[in-house]
């Protein structure tokens, strides 16, 4: 459900009993100031990040991470909401991933084919888990990519569905694997 529809529902549900006019809801529904510029990552790190994000959430019958604007959200959140040591884990991780790919495969990560990229990331994830690393590069990157996608306009209205005002509550709705899930 999009914003405009949500505003309409308000007036449909409440009609004359609304405490304030519809125009107020329309104004409240405007996006907040989005003048934030991501400036944390180098252009090389950005390329690597975009490729990693797309490996985590690829384009299928629904948009992938890149189309959903995940790389930009990722950088804004990393820059503004993370402490320097946590930023460093991800930034060093991106740089090292590229360096390692150049040594082992003669190419940057972004230029490899996706199956190979996934193979590399899968091995890294396994190594991280086996070593019981907390807050490692793969885990931290995946967590932030997952959250950026689910909270992006594209992700939340294609692969998921976000309703601002569900309007009813059921504790026993039928569900089967493959049904679209509500955020």
């Amino acid at each position, binding site marked *: 459900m999009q914003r405009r529809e949500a505003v309409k529902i308000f007036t449909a549900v409440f009609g004359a009993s609304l*405490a304030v006019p519809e125009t107020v809801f329309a104004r409240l529904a405007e996006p907040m100031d989005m003048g934030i510029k991501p400036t944390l990552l180098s252009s090389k790190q950005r390329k690597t990040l975009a490729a990693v994000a797309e490996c985590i959430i690829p384009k299928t019958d629904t948009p992938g991470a890149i189309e959903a604007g995940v790389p930009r959200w990722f950088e804004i959140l990393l820059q503004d909401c993370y402490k320097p040591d946590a930023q460093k884990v991800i930034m060093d991780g991106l740089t090292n991933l590229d360096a390692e790919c150049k040594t082992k495969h003669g190419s940057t990560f972004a230029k490899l084919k996706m199956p190979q990229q996934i193979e590399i990331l899968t091995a890294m994830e396994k190594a991280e888990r086996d070593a019981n690393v907390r807050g490692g590069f793969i885990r931290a990157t995946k967590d932030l990519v997952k959250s950026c996608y689910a909270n*992006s306009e594209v992700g*939340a209205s294609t692969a998921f569905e976000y309703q*601002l005002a569900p309007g009813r509550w059921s504790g026993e709705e039928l569900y089967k694997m493959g049904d679209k899930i509500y955020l």
Partner: protein
Amino acid sequence: MQINHNGVVAENTYDAIVVGSGISGGWAAKELTEKGLKVLVLERGRDLRHVVDYQTTMSMPWDLPHQGKSSEESLKQQSVQARTGYTVQNEATAYLFVKDTEHPYIEKRRFDWMRGYHKGGRSITWGKQSYRWSQMDFEANAKDGIATPWPVNYDEIAPWYSYVERYVGVSGSVENLPQLPDSDFQPAMDLTAAEKVLKRAVESKWKGRKIIPGRAAHLTAPTQEQLALGRGKCQYRNLCSRGCPYGAYFSSNGATLISAERTGNMTFRPHSIVGSLIYDEATGKAKGVNVIDEVSKQPMEFFAKIIFLNASCIASTSILMNTKTQRYGAAGLDESGSLGRYLMDHHLGVGASGIFEGELDKTTFGRRPNGVYVPRYRNLHEEGKGYIRGFGYQGGAAGRQGWSRDIMGFGEDFKKQYTSLGPWSVNLGGFGEWLPYKDNMMFLSPDKKDQWGLPQVVVDAGYTSNEVNMRKDMMNDAAEMLEAMGAKNITTNTSEPALGLGIHEMGTARMGTDRKNSVLNKWNQVWAAPNVFVTDGAFMTSANCVNPSLTYMAFTARAADYAVSELKKGNL
């Protein structure tokens, strides 16, 4: 222009002054204005107009600058409250909590003080859980011989509970439990499929334990009176603490202050910090309040026949402490020695969580702003070892795990898992009674002042073996109940109890039977200044284990009724 005998402009004179516009101040304003009094409501913070100023209430996650996560920059300004891991961590609600950098206080021991300085106070961000006290709770201090006895009993308060519930709108189920009297309910919010499994498992295994729908101040079947205020039914957004555009949950802004406004008898003044009462040595009453304008920092005086202090527990007590008189001296308006003492909260941050892999053909629709409740059973049906009183639980299985759960892998396989549901998440978190201890106290700093020249508050309070022993049961019982339903990966959690975390600070100006043992009488009236009433959390003589706001509201309505009848009789 009329000038009164003090040479003060008559326009600064009202019938009543209400200090604070939070959950109890809103009720004082409503009741006093509806009874025909001209009332000045003083709010220390900014105005926050209902709906119009709820700046994030219609925001989609992607409308927020950081998709809802507070930035490090913003957390720096709220670093004290940020320790709790909630309230200010949410980008959409952080604007409803104060900046710690602007409102310092001193912690001798850790004390988490979450404050919302704006019209409506914390009635905007409260948890809405609403439970009555029972007769055994009002009798508890007398029976255990601790602190001081409550001067009221359940039968005196019950009609006032009903009175406020019918106006507020509390959803819940009738259970006929002696330890948790039923309210005048609107329909309860249903349990989830997994919560029904939990309920069956727990209630068949333990005779005295019950799993019931949380009792919450949300409209599920609004009355004509509520609709006429512009309030509507809950839309199951669970974005409540941004401010509700439907007025579906109860807040001062969405209800009591609207009622007060409509009488034409209310004057609302934001940015008005009350430092102390103006005490009349001759009459032994307060004739007004000293105010400092938050913005201009200019001092002002306002006068009235009766004064309600609803500034929140610690702030109302600060005002009483900061009122220096010849009669009572430098300690403030008290001769019992209890002012500032017996600070309480509920202790929480203890319980268990896990996953439940049954009922996987079912999920939830909508976001329920509520959970299940487990009424107290320890030291009632089952003995609690090494402690008196008891605890309740909140939590449940509100939904199934979604995208944020830990999933290994990459690519299409990962995405398939990521966009589908996992098992049910289930948890129970305890809310324990914190006993009233004389040494748990707050006082005013003799030298440190805030930017308005008012003394900073110092808090020095802790716990004893009663809380520690209770927490063992709170943790283990929770795990046992999850085990009984067949939950897996059960983990228990506990922490060192810190006052304030429950955001239920209370005590410090308790009621009692005698001016020698308490600050207030049974009508919330200050013994040392009978035209002053304190009806926020400060009046509480013990804490019980249930969320306190409903009780503050009932006592406020009762005190306002009493105050006006005494005023009419010429007794105030």
